[in-house]
């Protein structure tokens, strides 16, 4: 089953914060986050493994709640370069290495 992402779209001013959520009805092993800029390939941001702690770099971080089968991506003090569509990709415990992606969240950061 495809994960559910929310919100579908968000518009920010530079410097504002945003949270993107991803939830699943299936037991998860790991959660991936990717960002895709218009007309470009998705780019890997980070992975959160079952039993792992919150990860991040710079002002983008994420958490993974195994019990709730949810992950959240946190963007703080957003920059113009953060604009793009964010996808979560979920790996079930029996999925091998095949990710199932959500519909994406379109993030726009304005000056």
């Amino acid at each position: 089953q495809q994960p559910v992402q929310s919100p579908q779209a968000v518009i920010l001013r530079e410097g504002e914060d945003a949270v993107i959520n991803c939830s699943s009805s299936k037991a998860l092993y790991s959660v991936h986050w990717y960002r895709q800029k218009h007309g470009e390939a998705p780019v890997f941001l980070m992975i959160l493994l079952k039993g792992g702690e919150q990860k991040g770099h710079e002002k983008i971080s994420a958490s993974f709640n195994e019990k709730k089968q949810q992950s959240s991506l946190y963007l703080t003090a957003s920059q113009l370069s953060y604009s793009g569509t964010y996808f979560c990709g979920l790996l079930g415990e029996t999925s091998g290495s095949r990710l199932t992606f959500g519909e994406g969240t379109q993030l726009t950061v304005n000056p």
Partner: protein
Amino acid sequence: GAGVSQSPSNKVTEKGKDVELRCDPISGHTALYWYRQSLGQGLEFLIYFQGNSAPDKSGLPSDRFSAERTGGSVSTLTIQRTQQEDSAVYLCASSERQAPLVYGYTFGSGTRLTVV
């Protein structure tokens, strides 16, 4: 290579024709994936190859779609008798050999297929 290479970058074809899309993964990556992205939509899984194991074809939408991977490297996705609903960006990705996956995918730039 340095990244995942896909060709052609754009393909316009007439309805009913066959097309072949090519993917050259990162050297040493034994897992290769094909996804499809329709305009403004998410990433729809098609097929994946892991080393010498039988491919997971569970995402192929119809028997008009097939893929092969020769020599554990280059992959070709073939769509026979193309239909207008096949129009999309076809993305290929590769990853290091891990199951379950603990590293991210590296995506190619995709092939934009337009069926007219």
